[in-house]
């Protein structure tokens, strides 16, 4: 299909436009509202997300799943893949806003900025999921990164938060600089920024000897530094524990789910559309390189999580490990692998956000983020403890919870391609992860604390908790009725 021109593209771009419009509306509303206790800006943001969701569904009905629509002269593309990620990101943002409403960390005076930035970062992530041009890839990545830096350092009075922002920005600057260098090299080799043309261009210069395999390899490695930084894969994961620990908890949850999902969207599109084509795979075997990265990422994440005492930091390492699992699906560069990643991301969205929500609640009520603070939670707040146990066991991958099915699909896809060793490492890692997840459960159920007062939560809290807990139990069954690899493809 011919790429649409600028004006023609606007209709298909409405979800993104709505987000920006509502971000501006939030800023203006914040200026006009004098009452600092008012939560109106949060509700405006939620309405904005709702409008955007409607727009996504409408645009989705306009596309045929097998024929993507290139927009803005091929800068971005609207296809099932983008729609899937947009909905996922939207849900994660909505959850983050709901968390933020409950969070007591945030300064009431800065709400307007906070929610405007959240909408802006979602806008950037939408673009990450749909970019098909090197320039657009970089700009969308930068939009997300820059906003994330600010959000991570949002608690300006907290040294921990400022440190988080500083580390984030330092690592981020190096990573995006390296990535930009790699992109420029690829552009210099292919002579085009368009992902769909790059593969054939690179293949032809490779064949004619104009470019050596080594050069392409190094260029892609540079680009991987930028993407790997976003999905916190080894060896670009170092920022993540400190940032996750220092950032406000809702933002930590957001970064661990949405930022990672958007990173994967970019990663998958980059490789499936740009460099996963057979003509390039002949000379460079990405699968093997990515498999090693994947194995390292999950192992490092899980091993580092073992000694952690701070639940936020523990979940940070755990989310690195989950990035490793997700990478297993990316290794394959097959539709089955892609389908497995989609499914795992949905499961991960619910279980990880749920776990972080409990962390927000405990931080508010008990005032601590350490495992010790979870002692005796089973008696103090049985429902919350029960939900937390569900999330943690699901993160481990214990049947019959959703996490199990997610891993099942991933391992199945990996074994199907004959990468038995990778599946084995994944399995070993799941066993290791049981140790540290179970430690929190042990603290909640088998240890007692001096403080035995029951913690009270509002009905809204329980409702939101069940929104995460119930899918974490049942969503695994979705896989039986719905196979993503048939529905959403990347080309």
């Amino acid at each position, binding site marked *: 299909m011919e790429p649409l021109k600028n004006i023609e593209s606007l209709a298909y771009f409405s979800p993104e436009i709505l987000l920006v419009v509502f971000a501006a509306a939030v800023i203006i509303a914040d200026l006009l509202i004098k009452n600092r206790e008012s939560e109106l800006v949060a509700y405006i943001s939620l309405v904005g997300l709702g409008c955007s969701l409607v727009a996504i569904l409408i645009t989705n009905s306009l596309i045929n799943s097998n024929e993507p629509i290139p927009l*803005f*002269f091929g800068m971005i593309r609207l296809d099932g893949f983008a729609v899937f990620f947009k909905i996922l990101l939207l849900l994660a943002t909505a959850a983050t806003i709901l968390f933020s409403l409950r969070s007591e960390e945030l300064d009431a005076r*800065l709400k307007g900025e906070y929610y405007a*930035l959240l909408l802006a970062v979602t806008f950037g992530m939408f673009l990450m999921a749909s970019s098909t041009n090197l*320039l657009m890839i970089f700009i969308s990545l930068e939009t997300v990164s*820059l906003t994330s830096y600010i959000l991570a350092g949002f608690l300006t009075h907290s040294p921990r938060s400022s440190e988080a922002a500083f580390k984030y920005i330092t690592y981020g600057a190096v990573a995006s600089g390296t990535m930009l260098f790699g992109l420029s090299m690829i552009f*210099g080799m292919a002579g085009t920024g368009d992902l769909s043309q790059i593969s054939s261009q690179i293949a032809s210069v490779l064949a004619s000897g104009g470019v050596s395999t080594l050069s392409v390899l190094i260029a892609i490695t540079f680009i991987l530094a930028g993407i790997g930084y976003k999905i916190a894969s080894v060896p670009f994961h170092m920022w993540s524990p400190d940032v996750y620990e220092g950032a406000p908890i809702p933002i930590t949850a957001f970064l661990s789910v949405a930022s990672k999902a958007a990173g994967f969207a970019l990663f998958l599109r980059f490789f499936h559309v740009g460099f996963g084509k057979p003509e390039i795979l002949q000379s460079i075997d990405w699968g093997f390189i990515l498999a090693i990265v994947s194995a390292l990422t999950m192992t490092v994440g899980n091993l580092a999580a073992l000694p952690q005492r701070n639940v936020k930091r523990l979940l940070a390492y755990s989310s690195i490990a989950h990035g490793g699992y997700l990478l297993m699906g990316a290794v394959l560069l097959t539709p089955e692998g892609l389908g497995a990643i989609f499914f795992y991301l949905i499961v991960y969205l619910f279980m990880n956000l749920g776990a972080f929500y409990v962390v927000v609640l405990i931080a508010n009520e008990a005032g601590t983020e350490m495992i010790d603070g979870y002692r005796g939670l089973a008696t103090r707040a049985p429902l919350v403890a029960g939900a937390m146990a569900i999330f943690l066991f699901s993160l481990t991958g214990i049947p019959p919870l959703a996490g199990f099915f997610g891993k099942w699909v991933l391992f199945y896809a990996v074994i199907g391609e004959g990468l038995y060793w990778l599946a084995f490492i994944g399995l070993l890692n799941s066993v290791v992860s049981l140790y540290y997840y179970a430690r929190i459960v042990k603290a909640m159920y088998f240890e007692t604390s001096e403080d035995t007062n029951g913690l009270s939560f509002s009905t809204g809290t329980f409702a939101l908790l069940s929104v995460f807990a119930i899918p974490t139990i049942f969503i695994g069954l979705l896989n039986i009725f719905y196979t993503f690899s048939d529905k959403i493809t990347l080309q």
Partner: protein
Amino acid sequence: MEFTLKTFIFYGFALMTIASALAVVTVRNIVHAAFALMVTLFGVAGLYVFLQADFLAATQVIVYVGGILVLILFGVMMTSGRLEMRIHIERGQLLLGGGISLALLMLLLTVIANTPIWKNLTDDGTQLAPTTERIGQLILNEKFLLPFEVVSVLLLVALIGAALISRKEVRD
């Protein structure tokens, strides 16, 4: 290679850029380093002219030399304002950093050496043609409108963030 006035000026700019870039990282006085950076950025603008990118060259000077670097100097003066402000580098860090930089240089040289299409680029003798109009058309009317608009969102976010971080603690 034909040695003309043009190549002579080109090597002048190249030398200026590289020498001052070296000075940026080796000089111990931070203001001197910032000043050397100015020469580097100016040299890069000169190199853009040789790439027939006149608009880019002028923009480089306006944005980097005239804007960003002045802000850097401003920041340096606000925070130190004294001649004694010096950067100390441990020997171990120096060796490590130098080693990594050297390795990276070797790597990139290998890439260049292994990419024949880059080496075969020659000056085809075309005259300097104005690029401003074409760039304006591309950014505001054609292919690059979306990136341009997204960058404006990015800058808005950066503006909000800067105001947020630099804002004084509000007491009430």
